[in-house]
């Protein structure tokens, strides 16, 4: 195995251009599970841990190499809540938000927040420069992204207008160290607009658009509207049954979770 450990983003992009087949390695918490269990034996690796630019974080732009531990104490409440539910302290010290995007697992705990905010994903290559695309163009399917072989994920770019309130919750078989059965973010903006995004209930994060539309026009929803909101969320998700849960349970809990988070947003 050959490994290159660039010291800057330019070096990293040059390495990826020269070796498009190389596996990008950040925190390693997904890659090494594949190595340990699935027989992954990369012939070439680009180790990204020493690329400072990927760890940069200003208000609207989160570097791909920012760890869950850093996000846990960050200024975005729902992302901080999500970060705190990722694995253990050991995992959160290593795993990154860029890694969540690169892996593009349907259960990725950072992804519903990016979906709710309509965040853009910034990727770059040495030859073609930087391009930016909406999250739902970047995440194309189960563990499938729009990243080209010579590109690296550089950052997440947040919208100019951030929500006034936002909340994250997750259901799993226990309260720590668990992969989501359902995870959900509800965000509410000053103008009353509401976004609802759910993970683990479809191949990619799902926005419950009809539920959003219903609730965004009602600043003080009645009990009947809240119930209809939950019903629409349950209708809009596309869960499957697998070893973690059944489709029916995921569908039911999606509505419960979204309603609970909406109540928190309305009360805040």
């Amino acid at each position, binding site marked *: *195995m050959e*490994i290159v*450990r660039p010291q800057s983003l330019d070096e990293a992009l040059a390495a990826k251009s020269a070796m498009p087949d190389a596996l990008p*390695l950040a*925190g*390693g*918490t997904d*890659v*090494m*599970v594949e*190595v*340990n*269990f699935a027989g*992954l*034996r*990369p012939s070439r*690796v680009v*180790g990204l*841990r020493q690329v400072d630019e990927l760890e940069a974080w200003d208000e609207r732009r989160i570097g791909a190499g920012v760890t869950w531990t850093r996000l846990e104490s960050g200024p975005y409440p729902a992302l901080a809540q999500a970060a705190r539910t990722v*694995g*253990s*302290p*050991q*995992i959160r*010290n*290593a795993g990154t938000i860029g890694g969540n995007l690169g892996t593009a697992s349907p259960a990725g705990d950072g992804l519903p927040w990016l979906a709710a905010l309509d965040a853009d994903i910034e990727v770059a290559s040495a030859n073609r420069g930087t391009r930016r695309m909406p999250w739902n163009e970047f995440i194309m399917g189960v563990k499938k992204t729009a990243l080209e072989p010579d590109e690296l994920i550089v950052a997440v770019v947040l919208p100019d207008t951030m929500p006034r309130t936002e909340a994250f919750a997750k259901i799993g078989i226990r309260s*720590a*160290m668990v992969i989501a059965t359902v995870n959900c973010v509800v965000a509410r903006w000053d103008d009353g607009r509401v976004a609802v995004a759910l993970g683990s209930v479809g191949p990619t994060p799902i926005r419950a658009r009809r539920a959003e539309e219903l609730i965004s026009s009602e600043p003080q929803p009645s009990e009947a509207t809240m119930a209809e909101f939950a019903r629409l969320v349950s209708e809009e998700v596309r869960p499957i049954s697998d070893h973690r849960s059944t489709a029916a349970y995921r569908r039911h809990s999606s509505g419960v979770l979204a309603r609970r988070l909406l109540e928190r947003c309305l009360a805040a």
Partner: protein
Amino acid sequence: MIIELTINGEARTATVAGSESLLTTLREELALPGAKNACEQGECGSCSVLMDGTLVCSCLVMAADCDGAAVTTIEGIASDGVLNAVQHAMHDAGAVQCGFCTPGIVIAATNLFAEDPHPSPDTIREALAGNICRCTGYGAIMRALEQVAEGSS
């Protein structure tokens, strides 16, 4: 390839064959068996080490990506045969059953107390969420660590 590490303050070199983990290198190349190999997927914490001062699962770190790193393993926690406060308290409280999880728990708890000398019981529990004791000896482990947190150990 050859990597250079500083392990418990000592310069060491190790041969890395491919994509194997730091845990494999520690145990099989460097004869440091204190970090344990159990789940190999970051669930159990028995392989916990400090890498450049950060608590990680060594089974999820690619050894080839560690060249130049400083690693603290359980073998480096006691100094000159003197147990640190966590080891001492766990010994006194009998917070060891089979002992397999103990190195990871000592590393994780030592890391916690370095950051927060007086954590609440909830903070201790959360800091140890990634360290599983399959003997379920958590009661004695918590009693030991609460003593350290109160400064009485």
